């Protein structure tokens, strides 16, 4: 004869029954497989964290010194001495490479000539509804599912969560990603961005980005904003209707992988210059 019992203790006991220790074979299989995972290239692609901060600073200092020394040498030969640096050119038209910089050391790529994207390959994002182009030596990974704010903002988008473009010179890999998300009704751009960059602990800004540090940009005729973070990434945000489109480069400005492109920002700007949004009305002129 069955006795009547409260079901919850039975369910709790049933749930707790079963193994709780990871079998040694599984642990061993995991650890053995680590060595065969193509991780080095993958991890280098989307994060420039292999180098310590000290190494990065040292590398940046070496590059700055080398460029400075080379500049002095070249200009000295041309103008007869360091004073030649300030000597205006006699040529009539402004040279793209000598355009004045409003922020000479912080954002040198803003004043640099844009990268040529003429030979870049077109890419249509079927997941997020935009077109973009990427360098012909790079590869593209297509998004297969929508990016979800609540969870996906915690990390660089995984494979499938965003369109990824991977490439770079001599194995110094760099990644650029593009994705989009719906902005909840009633959420302002600043509120969305603040939440996006909110520290995971719930307070403060992540990676040193606040709405005050965002810089304006234009993407396909639409106003956008760019954030260069202390987490070695630069991201562009374009709000169109109830959508926000995000394009990010996962390398620091001085990372060696982006030096041949003139820096991370200049490379991201090149990608942005090829963007066309599909699911919106024609871009304002």
């Amino acid at each position, binding site marked *: 004869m069955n006795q009547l019992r409260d079901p919850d203790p039975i369910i709790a006991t049933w749930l707790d029954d079963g193994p709780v220790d990871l*079998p040694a074979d599984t642990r061993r299989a995991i650890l053995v497989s680590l060595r065969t995972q193509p991780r080095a290239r993958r991890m280098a692609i989307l994060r420039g964290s292999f180098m310590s901060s000290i190494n990065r600073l040292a590398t940046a200092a070496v590059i700055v010194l080398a460029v400075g020394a080379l500049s002095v040498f070249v200009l000295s030969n041309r103008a007869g001495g360091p004073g030649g640096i300030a000597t205006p050119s006699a040529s009539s038209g402004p040279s793209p490479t000598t355009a004045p910089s409003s922020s000479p050391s912080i954002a040198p790529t803003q004043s640099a000539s844009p990268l040529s994207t003429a030979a870049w390959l077109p890419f249509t994002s079927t997941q997020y509804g935009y077109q973009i182009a990427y360098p012909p030596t790079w590869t593209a990974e297509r998004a297969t599912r929508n990016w979800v704010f609540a969870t996906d903002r915690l990390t660089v988008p995984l494979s499938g969560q965003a369109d990824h473009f991977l490439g770079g010179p001599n194995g110094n890999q760099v990644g650029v990603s593009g994705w989009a998300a719906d902005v909840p009704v009633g959420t302002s751009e600043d509120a969305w961005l603040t939440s996006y960059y909110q520290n995971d602990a719930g307070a403060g800004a992540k990676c040193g980005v606040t709405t005050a540090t965002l810089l304006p940009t234009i993407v396909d005729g639409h106003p956008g904003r760019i954030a260069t973070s202390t987490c070695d990434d630069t991201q562009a945000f374009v709000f169109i209707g109830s959508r926000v489109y995000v394009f990010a480069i996962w390398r620091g400005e001085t990372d060696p992988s982006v030096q041949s492109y003139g820096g991370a920002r200049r490379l991201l700007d090149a990608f942005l210059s090829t963007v066309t949004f599909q699911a919106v009305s024609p871009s304002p002129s």
Partner: protein
Amino acid sequence: MRTRLVERARDGDDVAFTELVDMDGDLCYSIAYRILRDVERAQDAVQQAFLLAWRELPRLRDPERFSPWLHRLLVNACYEEHRRHRRWTSRIRALPFDGPVSADPTVSIDDRDALDRAFLRLTPQHRAVFVLHHHAGLPLAEIAEIVGVPIGTVKSRLHHAIRSLRAALVADGQVDSTEARPA
């Protein structure tokens, strides 16, 4: 300590990652087993989750969020295992729960069978929420982050799972239906 391990593993230190496997492997396996109710598939899911974690760890922005991030990879691996085997299992009879028989007399064989059947009828999404909350003891907000749904959906799934299991016991005649209260 743990954060430092994550940072070292993120930078390619497989020894540090091994320590993370040792720290988190048991709980991950315990969760995966209870979602999938199958030893081998749980092992596969845990292995997939850790290998994906190793590969994707450099993309984790905040090392302090390693645990929910790992659990998220684990739950997704469980979903994938479920999908992979769904067709196969749908063509064969419903297998009994693949685990050690409880020595606890409060759970009879009939109880176990009823709960196993009811649990296997739940979607893996419902199972995951139920296991993460009632076995792993995670708060609803963290579960919402792990499974990628709003907290209201977590509550709904939890409610549905509990109600289904209670109903299974009641239908089996083992418990007092008046105590099988709706949540």
